[in-house]
C-alpha cells in the first residue's frame, strides 16, 4: 500500500497547483523510498528513462516554423480568410476539423496536425474569426473558451481516430499482450472494433460543438440586447 504514496503526491501536488516538474521528481523519490529503493537508484532510473524518452520532446522542433509564419502574419491571414465565408460558423468549422483529424489519424497521419502545427497557427484564429464575423470583438474569456474547445477537438479527433490505424502503438501493444496470453489476433480485428467508438465520438463531440456554437450566439444576443437597453 505504501507504494501508492507517490501516486498521492502526484494527485495532491497537481491539485494544489505546485510546479508539476517538481511534483513529479518528488513523487519519484517518495515512490522509491516507500518501495525501499535507494534514492540514487531512483534518480538513475528517472534519468535513464528521461534520456530514452527524448523523442517525446523532439517534436518541439516545429516551433521555429510556427513562430516565423506567425511573424509574417499567418494568424491574421487565417482570420481574413474565414471572414470571407460570412456564413461559416464556429460549430461547423470545428466539426470539419474533428472529421479531418479522425480521418487523418485513421490512415496513420497523426502528425499532419497538432496543437503547435495546426491549432495555434490556423484553427484557433479561424475559430475566433468565425465568431467575430457575427458579433464583432470578443471578450478575452470567450476567446479562451474558443481556443480550449479547438484544442479539445484536436485531442478527441486524434484519440478516436488513431486506433482505426493498424500500425499504431496501442494496437501493437494489445496484439503483443494478448499473444503472450495465448490469444492470437490480427491487428485488423482490433482496429475494426475502434470504428463504432469513432462514430460515437464524432456524434457526441459534434453535438457538443453545435451546442457550443448556439451558446456563444445566445450570449452575444443577450449582450447586444443589454447594450441596446442601455
Amino acid at each position, binding site marked *: 500500500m505504501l507504494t501508492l504514496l*507517490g501516486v498521492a503526491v*502526484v494527485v495532491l501536488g497537481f491539485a494544489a497547483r505546485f*510546479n*508539476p*516538474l*517538481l511534483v*513529479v*521528481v518528488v513523487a519519484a523519490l517518495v*515512490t522509491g523510498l516507500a*518501495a525501499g*529503493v535507494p534514492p540514487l537508484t531512483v*534518480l538513475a*532510473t*528517472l534519468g535513464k*528513462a*528521461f*534520456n530514452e524518452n*527524448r*523523442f*517525446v*520532446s*523532439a*517534436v*518541439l*522542433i*516545429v516551433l*521555429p*516554423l*510556427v513562430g*516565423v509564419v506567425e*511573424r*509574417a*502574419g499567418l*494568424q*491574421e*491571414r487565417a482570420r*481574413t*480568410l474565414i471572414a470571407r465565408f460570412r456564413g461559416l460558423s464556429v460549430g461547423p468549422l470545428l466539426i470539419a476539423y474533428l472529421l479531418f483529424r479522425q480521418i487523418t489519424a485513421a490512415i496513420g497521419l497523426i*502528425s*499532419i496536425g497538432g*496543437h503547435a502545427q495546426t491549432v495555434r*497557427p490556423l484553427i484557433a484564429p479561424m475559430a475566433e474569426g468565425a465568431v467575430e464575423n457575427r458579433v464583432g470583438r470578443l471578450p478575452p474569456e470567450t476567446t*479562451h*473558451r474558443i481556443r*480550449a474547445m479547438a484544442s479539445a477537438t*484536436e*485531442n*478527441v479527433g486524434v484519440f478516436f481516430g488513431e486506433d482505426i490505424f493498424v500500425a499504431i502503438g496501442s494496437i501493437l*501493444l*494489445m496484439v503483443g*499482450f*494478448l499473444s503472450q496470453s495465448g490469444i492470437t*489476433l490480427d491487428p485488423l480485428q*482490433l*482496429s*475494426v*472494433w475502434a470504428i*463504432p*467508438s469513432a462514430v460515437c465520438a464524432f456524434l*457526441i463531440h459534434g453535438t457538443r460543438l453545435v451546442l457550443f456554437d448556439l451558446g456563444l450566439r445566445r450570449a452575444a444576443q443577450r449582450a447586444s440586447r443589454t447594450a441596446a437597453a442601455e
Partner: protein
Amino acid sequence: MIKLGVVYVLAGLMFAAFAVFSATDRSNPKRLGNAAFWGLVSLSFLAGDRLGDLGNGFLVVGLALIAGLGLLGRGQPATTSPQERQALAARFGEKLFIPALALPVVLVFAILVLKPLHVAGQPLLEPKQSTLVSLALAAVIAIGLALILLRQPILSPLQEGRRLMDTVGWAALLPQVLAALGAVFALAGVGKVIGDLVTHWLPMDTRAAAVAVYCLGMAGFTMIMGNAFAAFPVLTAGVGLPILMHRFGGHPAAVASLGMLSGFCGTLMTPLAANFNLVPPALLELPDRYAVIKAQVPTALLMLAANMVLMYAFAFPR
C-alpha cells in the same frame, strides 16, 4: 540512413540557440534562469547518452528546481507588432499558407515515398522513429520556404521559436519527465498494487458489473498513470482476460479494443497526459492551466458510457 540522432542534434542546437539568445535578452529579468533551463535541455539532446543514468537524473532534478523555484521568465525577442502583421498578411496574401501547408505535404511525402526507400541495403529513414525524422525534415524544408517566400530575417525562426518556447515554458518538458516517472512507478510495482486492489475489492459477478469495472478501471487507472498503455496490461490481466474473456466468453478483440478506448477517455481527463492537456493551454496562452481538460470532460464521460454500452451489447455471444 537518416537516424534519430540527427534529429536530436538538430533539437540540441535549437535549444542551445534558445539558451544563448535568452542569456543576452535584457528584457527578461530572469534571463539566466531561462538560459540555464534551455541549456540543460540542449545538453540532454546533444550529450544525453554520455551523461550516464545518474547524470541524467541530476539533469532532471536541475530542470525541476529551476522551474519549481520560479526562476523561469519570459523573454521578449523583437517581433512584428499586430499592425505590422496585418500589413504583412495583406501583402503576402495566400502565399502565407505555403510554408504552413508545406509541413504536412512534405511529411506525407516522406512517410509514403521516402520511408519505404532503401539506399545501399539500408532503409533511408530510421524505421522505429521514421515519423519523427520525417517531421524534422518537413520542418527544415518549410522553414527554408518561409525564409525565401516571406523574406524573413535569417535568425528569425530561432528568435520566434524562443518566443513560443518561453510561452510554453516548463510545461514543454513535462511529458518527457512524466514518461520517466512511469519508469519509476514500474520499478516500484505501482501498477500491480492498484491492479490487485481493483480485482480484490470490486464485485464482478455479473457481466454488466465486470464490463463497468474494466472500462471505469481503464479510465481511472489511465488518469493516475497518465497514459492508457500503462493501464492496459494491468487491468486486462486482472479483469479483461480472466473474467470478461474467459468467464463470460467475451470476444478478445472487442473487449481489448473498447477497453483501450475507455482508457483514452481517461487520458482526456488527466493533467498527467501533459502533452495533450497541459502544453496546449500554455501554447494558446490560456490563463487556466486546466482549461482544455475542462472542455474535454463532458465528451470523455459520454464516450466512456458509449464504450461500456458497445462492449456490453456487442462483445459477448448471444
